């Protein structure tokens, strides 16, 4: 909200510079985001006296003047104005002055010492428009002044400067949506008197007869008070400059004197008002009521809108004429021919206004205030104030009277405030009278209830204050948070242990980094199309109000994010990617994880793609192979100490990992269709694991128990087998492990070969086995016996023969 410093000064004495005032407002809880000066202070423009004037030797239209600007030596100034003459008192922009006019390139005009057609010129004798003081450019401004030469312009002319602050209003402060409200905070902080533009008691209006206007409120719960004030003899026309300037300063467009007056009062007192053309009110009857069905209504911005059932309207005898608290109707707006005005000043209940405004997506300055909760007891003051202003800006206007319907009266709230509670909450040692002074400064009524307790009456413009704690904040914010002493130390109760999940997540991240993966952060919201590749349609979760079609659907897996990141980088010339991500995934499920019907789990994705090795003088380029991904996943399990818990189910180009009965995840190559859909130009593969399964498994392994280093030597034994190409190495390995028994400590594949020297349909696999017994030294004879058995049974099971 924009606030004018000049306007604030109407209500509270402000002497400090604008930036300091802005700071005070900020520290009282209304953050000033920006301060802009309007109008130039014309620093550098001074009174001067033209001592001599001669014709410029090289230009017919120019004069060369000698001007006394109070600096001792007169300066020479070249002037183009026809009216310049010796003896004149003029305004001189001295060298270095910035004038409030723009050069053709948009930059401000800065006066420099220069030569004009060969004659030195040190300054500029100014015309009215060049100073922003008017529009006259017919000649220089000649002063009738006896002020000495060198006097700053601000001492001879009243300059229209102002500072406009952009104040961020928190939703709890409806009182601060106007100049008076902000002035009130300042008056409390500065301990200055608040000059309100209305008196202490409600104005009394001459009553209007039923012939003038009838007002009925059919929904008093939604409209607590409605005053209609009739003014006759109105002349609609432009507003005077003082009102225009104030409204334009805070970013409003001046419309006409009547509408401007209502806006002026809204920004002064926070009470929205509406001016009807009285002659357009059918039946001279105002009915405030909600409609039980949708209504088509044209608001005064010219838009025809469908207003949902239950919205509150102001109707005349025939039709709706305004959408209550939000916007007037086109059918009753003030026109140039209006001569009688019915001013509406009402209190509308916030919830209903907000509902309607939200549902039609229309927030006006009026609805903004009503939905926060305006002062229910300023109605009469505000309408009186507005009428007075209209009388001032429309000569001949006359107040006929007002009708005041007030079905619900709001009494101020009283709250007990304990001194001890204030100090216990804040950690301060405030005294009784400090608190009383602060609260009184904010117009709270304060009575002493007991020794250490106050009874505080909350003004009705502060609907946010409902509890003792709210009063504590009022005291603290006016006292200034920064003045509350910092104790310099803190105390806390005995900490409880970190959950295992936290430790596990660190280990998981560390393991991924150790394996050379870069962490990525993907989007949790995907285009539905992208998500649909990774879950069934009935598992996908969509936002009801997405911001775009690219972010409609919750990610059912991390995989789409990996593919997107891979494509992004390949398309920018990356040769390889090696990414990991930890993040939450979402799917519909019978039983929810946290909330009903939603399976939400944290996943880990490890993905690689493109080249697994770039070419270099020492090595040739190597493309991505899925087996590397398998190695990385195995390395990952090793790093976390869970290898022995993981079972695998291996298919042609995927591996399913399980822990116990739970599926831990899968490793896979995406299908060509998916690669195409994600615009991934290189081969990629990834493993996606559920941390909801992995972390509990890690927890069972969390304790590391030392195992003694083997005392006895181990024996290494290699065999090469020839088997059919269809035989899976994993099956042979499993067989060997089973047959060899527990002295076999490890098995690895040192050779895989097919081709020359082998029969068609055969391949050769070389296994290296390490045997060890923890209780004695194994002999080669022991191992020979095992090998013989292994080879025999391999022969029977896989038709494997030893390669000679």
């Amino acid at each position, binding site marked *: 909200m924009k606030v004018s410093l000049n306007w604030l000064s109407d209500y509270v004495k402000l002497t400090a510079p604008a930036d300091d005032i802005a700071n005070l407002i900020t520290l009282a809880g209304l953050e000033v985001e920006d301060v802009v000066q309007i109008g130039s202070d014309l620093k550098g423009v001074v009174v001067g006296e033209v001592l001599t004037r001669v014709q410029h030797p090289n230009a017919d239209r120019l004069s060369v003047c000698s001007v006394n600007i109070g600096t001792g030596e007169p300066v020479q100034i070249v002037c183009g104005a026809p009216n310049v003459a010796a003896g004149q008192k003029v305004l001189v922009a001295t060298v270095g002055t910035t004038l409030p006019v723009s050069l053709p390139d948009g930059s401000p005009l800065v006066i420099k010492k220069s030569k004009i057609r060969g004659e030195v010129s040190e300054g500029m004798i100014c015309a009215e428009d060049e100073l922003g003081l008017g529009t006259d450019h017919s000649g220089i401004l000649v002063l009738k002044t006896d002020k000495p030469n060198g006097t700053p312009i601000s001492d001879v002319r009243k300059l229209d400067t102002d500072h406009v602050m952009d104040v961020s209003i928190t939703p709890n402060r409806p009182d601060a949506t106007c100049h008076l409200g902000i002035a009130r905070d300042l008056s409390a902080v500065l301990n200055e008197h608040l000059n309100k533009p209305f008196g202490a008691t409600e104005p009394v209006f001459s009553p209007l007869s039923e012939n003038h206007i009838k007002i009925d409120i059919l929904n008093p719960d939604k409209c607590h008070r409605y005053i209609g004030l009739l003014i006759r003899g109105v002349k609609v026309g432009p507003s005077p400059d003082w009102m225009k300037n104030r409204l334009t300063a805070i970013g409003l467009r001046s419309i006409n004197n009547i509408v401007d007056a209502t806006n002026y009062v809204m920004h002064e007192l926070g009470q929205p008002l509406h001016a009807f053309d009285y002659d357009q009110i059918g039946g001279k009857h105002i009915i405030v009521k909600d409609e039980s069905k949708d209504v088509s209504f044209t608001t005064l911005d010219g838009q025809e809108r469908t207003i949902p059932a239950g919205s509150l309207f102001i109707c005349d005898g025939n039709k709706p004429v305004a959408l209550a608290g939000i916007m007037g109707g086109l059918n009753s707006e003030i026109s140039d021919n209006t001569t009688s005005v019915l001013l509406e000043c009402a209190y509308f209940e916030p919830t209903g206004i907000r509902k309607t405004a939200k549902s039609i997506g229309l927030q006006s300055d009026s609805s903004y205030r009503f939905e926060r909760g305006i002062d229910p007891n300023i109605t009469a003051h505000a309408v009186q104030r507005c009428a007075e202003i209209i009388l001032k800006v429309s000569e001949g206007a006359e107040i006929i009277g007002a009708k005041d319907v007030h079905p619900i009266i709001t009494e101020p709230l009283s709250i007990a405030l304990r001194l001890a509670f204030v100090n216990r909450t804040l950690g301060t040692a405030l005294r009784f009278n400090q608190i009383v002074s602060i609260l009184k400064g904010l117009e709270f009524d304060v009575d002493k209830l007991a020794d250490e307790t106050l009874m505080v009456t909350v003004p009705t413009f502060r609907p946010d204050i409902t509890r003792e704690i709210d009063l504590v904040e009022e005291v603290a914010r006016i006292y200034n948070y920064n003045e509350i002493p910092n104790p310099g130390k803190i105390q*806390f109760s005995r900490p409880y242990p970190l959950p295992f999940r936290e430790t596990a997540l660190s280990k998981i991240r560390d393991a991924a980094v150790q394996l050379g993966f870069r962490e990525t952060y993907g989007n949790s*919201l995907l285009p539905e199309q992208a998500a649909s590749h990774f879950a069934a349609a009935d598992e996908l*979760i*969509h936002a009801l109000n997405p911001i775009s079609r690219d972010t409609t659907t919750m990610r059912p897996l991390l995989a789409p994010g990996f593919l*997107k990141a891979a494509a992004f980088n390949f398309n920018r010339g990356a040769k390889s990617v090696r990414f990991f991500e930890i993040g939450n995934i979402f799917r519909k499920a019978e039983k929810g994880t946290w909330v009903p019907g939603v399976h*939400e789990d944290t996943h880990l994705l490890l993905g690689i793609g493109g080249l697994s090795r770039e070419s270099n003088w020492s090595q040739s380029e190597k493309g991505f192979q899925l087996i590397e991904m398998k190695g990385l996943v195995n390395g990952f399990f090793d790093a976390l100490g869970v290898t022995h818990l993981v079972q695998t189910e291996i298919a042609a180009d995927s591996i399913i990992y399980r822990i116990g009965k739970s599926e831990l995840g899968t490793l896979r190559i995406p299908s060509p269709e998916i690669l195409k859909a994600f615009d991934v130009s290189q081969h990629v593969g990834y493993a996606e694991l559920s941390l909801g399964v992995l972390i509990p498994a890690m927890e069972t392994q969390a304790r590391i128990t030392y195992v003694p280093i083997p005392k006895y030597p181990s024996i290494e034994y290699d065999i090469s087998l020839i088997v059919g190409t269809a035989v899976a190495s994993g099956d042979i390995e499993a067989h060997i492990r089973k047959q060899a028994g527990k002295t076999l400590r490890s098995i690895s594949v040192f050779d895989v070969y097919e081709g020359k020297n082998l029969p068609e349909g055969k391949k050769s696999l070389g296994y290296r086995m390490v045997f060890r017994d923890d209780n004695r030294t194994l002999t080669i004879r022991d191992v020979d016996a095992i090998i013989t058995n292994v080879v025999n049974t391999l022969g029977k099971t896989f038709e494997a023969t030893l390669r000679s």
Partner: protein
Amino acid sequence: MYSDIDALRAEIQAAALETADDLETYRLRFLIRKSPIADLFSAMGRLPAEERANAGKLLNELRDLAQQRYDEAKAVIGSGTIVTRKATDDLTLPPAMQPLGSLHPITLTLEEIKQVFFRLGFSVADGPELEDDFHNFTALNFPPEHPARDMQDTFFIRKDHENPENDLLLRTHTSPTQIRHMLSRKPPIRAIMPGRVYRNEAVNYKSYFLFHQVEALYVDKHVTFAELKETLVMLAEMVFNRKVKYRMRPSFFPFTEPSLEMDIWWDAPGSEGRWMEILGAGMVHPNVLKAAGIDPEEYSGFALGMGVERIAKQRYGIDDIRLFYENDIRFLEQFR
């Protein structure tokens, strides 16, 4: 015999042994079975018996010398300090790059913030990103149809018209985890709630529809606003690792009262200094304690929250929040 020994000794000492070829020539001359030294050993039998011991000693020394020079030269030549190196032995060549893993700048920042909290005795609590209205709004003292809800534009997942507290939505802050944590244990409570949150806001360089927060909650007997202030100052100094110039301004959050926002003075070299908001905080609202089953007359508490992206942007001088979610390697690799 003695003159032969002297001549051979001189020859051995003078032999040039600079290349592998030199070494081989030398070996063939002195160290094979039929070398002149071996011949002299054979000839020893012809010497008078009293001479043999002395000659034998000299011959042994000669043989050892020959071997020693050979070994020394071989060691030098073999070490490559003399032989011409192969092209690939050039250490000025660039080696192949090692794949390096890295953490995302948000993780780096978040982990540092967490470490600070852990030093200050906070534990950590977890909750869902897809929340219900009760935990995200109602229990946090956001009345239905209150403009405070406009402060946090919300993605809705499911509307429950019968009971709006069951509306499903993407959490707009990590505060619902505070409610869950308070409901799960008795005070004293001292924990942080890090995580991803969502706001239905247009994307530009300053704002994204998802970001990360860390909130902290302390509920105990006699927790004061002054202690909150002190905690915030400690936190800021530990996160930025220096003394900071700060100010605290009153603000509004439905779930705290009094509420504040903390700014720190930021003057990057070469640019004008300015106040930069780093966190919001306040004393936990009595309504929130009540909703979480804690008696506000007996206990008080404070809560605070900060945006991780905001801190990360500041730490690394990142001017566009969208970079965090593009996952461009040229961005990610800068964070080591």
